[in-house]
């Protein structure tokens, strides 16, 4: 199980057409330039790089929200190009969990409702939904916030709600885009601890985009991006502090 590749990309390219470029001629911007890597099950992989290097774009492509311009993305060995949009939706709903920097919670729904959205969209029975929501809320200390609306919560609380939502369908892969980016150190620490626990105890594969070396040091492997290309891959040694310093050094080189 450990050696199975959950995600594999070959020559992955993603270009964007810049409509609002200063240059009046529309320009094609090459954001991802032929990436090759794989993520194995139960790995905790970090994607790092400077702003604008294509981290979020990569995450969107890996999360099957966006399509690659060229190259191949395999999810569980299946070529994503051969999948129909509803199949992609099914994968996102059942096999992936998303955590965003801006949370993307629905203010119209309560905390409880927000968490159960993926289950509800999967036509899960009401009883199962309620039980699972209660389980995760208790696990992440959100029981007292059940009926609150997201806009009544702190940043850390909102992100924990987002984590619960990401876990509710028992996904194989969790994609996190700067999950601690909008949080203070304390809240950030709670979130990263939760993610570590999810990876280690719940055996979930996590792919996290971050620019914070401290958060990245919790990952088992780091993919360093520069100008849309993989600059280097760093593997974590047993000593987390040493790994952190290595990441800091590498980031300074970028």
């Amino acid at each position, binding site marked *: 199980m450990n050696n199975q590749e959950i995600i594999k990309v070959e020559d992955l390219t993603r270009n964007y057409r810049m409509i609002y470029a200063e240059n009046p001629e529309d320009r094609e911007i090459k954001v991802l330039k032929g990436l090759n890597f794989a993520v194995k099950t139960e790995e905790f992989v970090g994607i790092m790089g400077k702003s604008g290097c294509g981290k979020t774009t990569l995450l969107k492509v890996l999360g099957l929200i966006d399509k690659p311009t060229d190259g191949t993305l395999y999810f569980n060995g299946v070529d994503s190009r051969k999948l129909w949009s509803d199949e992609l939706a099914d994968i996102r709903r059942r096999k992936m969990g998303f955590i965003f920097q801006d949370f993307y919670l629905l203010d119209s729904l309560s905390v409880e409702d927000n968490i159960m959205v993926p289950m509800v*969209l999967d036509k899960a029975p009401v009883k199962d939904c309620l039980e699972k929501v209660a389980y995760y809320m208790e696990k992440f200390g959100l029981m007292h916030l059940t009926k609150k609306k997201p806009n009544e919560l702190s940043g850390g609380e909102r992100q924990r709600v987002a984590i619960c939502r990401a876990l509710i369908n028992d996904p194989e892969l969790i994609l996190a885009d700067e999950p601690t980016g909008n949080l203070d150190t304390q809240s950030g620490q709670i979130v990263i601890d939760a993610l570590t626990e999810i990876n280690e105890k719940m055996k979930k594969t996590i792919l996290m985009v971050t620019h914070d070396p401290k958060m990245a040091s919790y990952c088992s492997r780091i993919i360093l991006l520069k100008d849309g290309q993989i600059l280097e891959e760093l593997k974590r040694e047993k000593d987390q502090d040493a790994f952190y310093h290595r990441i800091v050094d590498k980031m300074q080189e970028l």
Partner: protein
Amino acid sequence: MQKKKSRRKEKICVGVIGYAIFLIYSMWPVYRLRDGYHSFYGVFRLLSQKGAAALTDSCRDVWDGNMGAIKIQVGLFVIMQIVAVLYLILLILNKYRYIQPVVIGIAITEMFLSDYAAYGTVADNVMAFMFFMPMVVMSLLELALQKMIDVYDEALARSRNYEVQEQEKKEEAHRRLDFPGKYTKLFYHMIWKNFRSDWKDYRLFLFCGIMVGTLAFSGLGAYEMLSSSHRADLSMYGGEGLGRILINAMIPLAACCLFLMVFVLIFYLRKWIQNYSIFVTLGIRRKALWTIAGLEIGLGFVFSYIGGVIVGNGVLLLFRKIVGNMVGDQINLSYASKTTYLVSLAVLFLVYLVSLMATRDIVSDFNLISAATRNVAKEKMPRRFLKIITVIGAAICGYSAISYSKIYNYEKITLMLALFVGLFLLYRFGGTLLLRKDKASKGYLGTLLKRNDRYHRSKTTAWYLAALTALHICGMFYFAFQSVSVTVAEQPESLFPYDFMCISYDEDQKTFENLEKQYGAKVTTYPMVRISNSDKTEKNEGYYEKRIQGQQIGISESTYHALKKAIDPDYKPHFLHLDAKGEKVYLVHQQDRSVKAQPIDWTFSKKKPNIHVGIVCEGYTPYEHFSEETTYQQRTIAGEEIGSLTGCFRDGKLENLVVFSDAFFTKAQNLWKTTNVLNGSFIKKKTDAIEGLTVKQGPTKLVLINSKAKDHKAIKRELEKFQEKHKEDQAYDAEIANYYAKDESVKDLRTERMMKLIVNLFVTATMLFISMFLVYIKVLSELDEKNKRAEFFTCMGMRKKERIRILLGELHLMFWLPGAFTALVTAVFTGITFYVRMYTNAVKLQFITHAVWLWGGYILVELLFMWLLGKFMVRKVEKDDE
């Protein structure tokens, strides 16, 4: 192999049957000559022996006696038959050869030859002309069948293969997309909660839909209500009938509704997509997503219709009350029937459909991140050809104004549309030019925060400004002018100086003498000629469509002066600058001040009217060139006036006065003798002029009658008999009559004016309302962004007063800039309309005195709304401070 063999059999079978019929037909006697029907070869034999004597009387005159052409056709015919026989023999010998194109080619050549010469002119039956066509069809059919047999097996296999593939695809789709079970109540609960939180936006969308529904229902209902009264039904063909007035107002309103619906839908869908993008990311199925969207829009449609019908019925009730109070029993109002309900439903559906199609690009993008940032994305400012496009915009505006000043453009709303296009270009490109200039100036940084909105949202701002300007111009000028002009129009009675106007013939003299004797009526008779013009309506008929010609009254200069004198005893005759050749005419447009200025003739490129002396020649068309010179001549307008000398019975569309010089008029009275009444050509040979067949005299007397009011009914009865005698005069155009009565016309005119006033005021009010609604939507759609900006400004230490000033400055731009353009356009175009409608200074002054109230009211409501909206916006944006 077996299959191939069997196909060959089929090919031979088709070929043999096809060409056997072909050859039998080719020998069939279809040509009718003097002594009966003959075959192709029979005709040749007879012509060779007897020449033209073999032909019928009518063909003898037509055939040119050219045997050479006949021989060529016979030669080709022989070759064609030889090839056909050869093909047939080869087929029977089981050897298929592809030689049919030779047969087809010859048959086509023969067909064309027969159309113009040779065999086409020797027989007078239709089949003689058509002889080769069945051969062409048969040979083409045979060829097509042969080709079909060739590809039949392949096509069959492909079709079966396609079916199997389709079935496999279906099965695969079923397998891959299988999603059993039903959504639980939690799903509906969530969707409902989400919908409830969107209610504010949905309410706006619904409100807009109800407004569109109301306008559609009340407009159509009002039209139906009026359609049974007076000449509303005729008005569809021309003139200023009630229905026409309503339709003229409803078309721009429909355009505004569509525009508004698209605007609101864009606003609503953007927010909707932003919400549902989360669901898409979390893996909602497309079917479920589109069901939710479809339900929301579908329910919106249903409630818009129901709301529209309810409110529309209220509007109709109000309309009925107002009309009833204003004209009492003079007008017969019917009720809105199921037609109104059904047609308004179709109209609303169409508006929804077009709006959804216009917003489809928004709906197709469910990207979570771009959906969240779409509302704040910077809009690209144009960079190239700014000066050129600005000049083009100004030129379009100038062209619109100049064209509007031409009477033959009939104060067209399309010229207003051109003006709006020009104004948009000025806003978008001229505005960008100014902004770029401003950016390069030293004071740029000082005004950056105040004007940032214009840079950041240049496209949206230009669209809003152009839309608001267009709405204000429609409200303040175009429709306001129509309503105010009613208030300055002459009294209906004064527009009909005579109780009856008759268009009569010499032999009717007795009828009028009897009227004089029996009722003591004062009968005045003037000589006249019927005048026709080549196009009666403003509609552009195009090449193939028949034009309805207009009919006017032709009089002499002396008659004109006499008519003027009869109305105004102080009138002093003046020279009208007319010529003896009749090339110059003086026109009296018999219409009132509230009717749009219009030309006598509407022929395309109608600077000079196409005027024919005489009754309508039905065969005349401006596109056909006769060998003789046509009598429909373009004549120069030496002068014109708007007024009433005999009565405004057809609102300036028909029965206007065309004045010729006395010298020409005498000639004109006899022109009918040399004018071909069939097509309007000159008749040169005297023998060709057969009275009643090729030449026909039209009415000759213009009879004007005044009598005592108590005798009107009796005189009318007499005139109905007179009209019955000349009913063929109405055969061409039902709007033309031999007598017109003042009483009915006064009643019609009064109701038309009332209708015009109500409808145009309603449209003006609607334009004002739509413009306010538009600004309201703009404010709502930008509220989030403005909130964030206010937070930023507060953090940066900007004072509240300054923040509010920026906020209100952006809002007030939507008032003063369109307002300034509207004021300018209104002033210029009102002046132009004064000119084309030939208003006197006193009328102009009276118009302005009346219009000031309407303009003032409009501006006041707009100002009040802006003030309230400003308060609302400040409260919403600066809420934290309070």
